[in-house]
């Protein structure tokens, strides 16, 4: 058995119909459990007070914003190199989810920043690279809509995805390249001195798992829709030509 079997739309539809209910159920369980645990059952932090509870939505959303672009990069490369339609459609299906995750990270960051930093926005390296990433998501989605031929659209959006990957990486590593800025260092660190307390760490892990599973479920659902839409357009074209 090869992973390329799933490039076949029929095989993808069959397998995803089996995976989708499980991913949805697990995502709901992890998200509800993690958010209830984090919101109701964790104490205030000494330095941040009750605003520490914002990490349970802000950190997973920011992680997903970057990692969804990486997933789009991988699937775009598969399209550009091997010409598998399902991979191009998966990248297209993932973009709106990544855009919403980036927006959540920007909005919750601004809401948190106002009382903590005294400002809604600062042209800090990480914040700025996240804003650029958000604009790349919008541009990527607009490019798909602007081009009628789906293969040309997949080619051009694939190239845009390669370019945007620079900003996805910058969003993650901006604080290492430039001065720290206002944004603190990584919340999730292997360095025990920087690592957050276990009281916050475990519910955060559950929320991250929930966001990942939420993405898996939604990208499967949206890719299935894109595959059906592609078939619908092909049938309509065949009917017109008959």
């Amino acid at each position, binding site marked *: 058995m090869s992973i390329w079997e799933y490039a076949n739309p029929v095989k993808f539809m069959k397998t995803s119909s089996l995976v989708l209910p499980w991913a949805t159920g697990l995502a709901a369980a992890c998200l509800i459990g993690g958010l209830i645990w984090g919101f109701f059952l964790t104490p*205030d932090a000494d330095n941040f007070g009750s605003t520490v509870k914002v990490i349970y939505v802000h950190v997973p959303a920011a992680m997903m914003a970057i990692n969804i672009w990486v997933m789009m990069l991988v699937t775009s490369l598969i399209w550009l190199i091997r010409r598998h339609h399902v991979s191009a459609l998966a990248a297209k299906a993932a973009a709106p989810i990544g855009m919403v995750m980036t927006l959540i990270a920007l909005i919750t960051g601004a809401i948190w920043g106002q009382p903590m930093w005294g400002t809604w926005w600062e042209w800090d390296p990480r914040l700025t690279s996240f804003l650029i990433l958000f604009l790349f998501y919008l541009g990527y989605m607009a490019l798909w809509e602007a081009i009628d031929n789906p293969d040309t659209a997949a080619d051009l959006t694939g190239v845009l995805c390669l370019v945007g990957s620079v900003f996805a990486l910058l969003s993650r590593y901006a604080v290492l390249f430039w001065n720290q800025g206002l944004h603190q260092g990584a919340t999730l660190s292997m360095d025990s001195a920087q690592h957050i307390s276990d009281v916050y760490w475990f519910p955060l892990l559950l929320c991250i798992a929930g966001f990942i599973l939420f993405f898996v479920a939604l990208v499967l659902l949206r890719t299935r829709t894109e595959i059906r839409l592609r078939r619908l357009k092909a049938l309509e074209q065949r009917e017109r030509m008959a």
Partner: protein
Amino acid sequence: MMPELGKYAVTVLGSYVATVALLAGLVALSLWKGAKVKRALARQEERMRKNG
């Protein structure tokens, strides 16, 4: 049951409300578009079957 959020209540609740609203909107739009495309494809396949 509600935790004491003190002067940061608006910050914390605002973040959660914004997140839930955006995620719910995304799910609703995805389900709506999925159902619409599925219906349209079924109609098209049925029409083509009838027309041979």
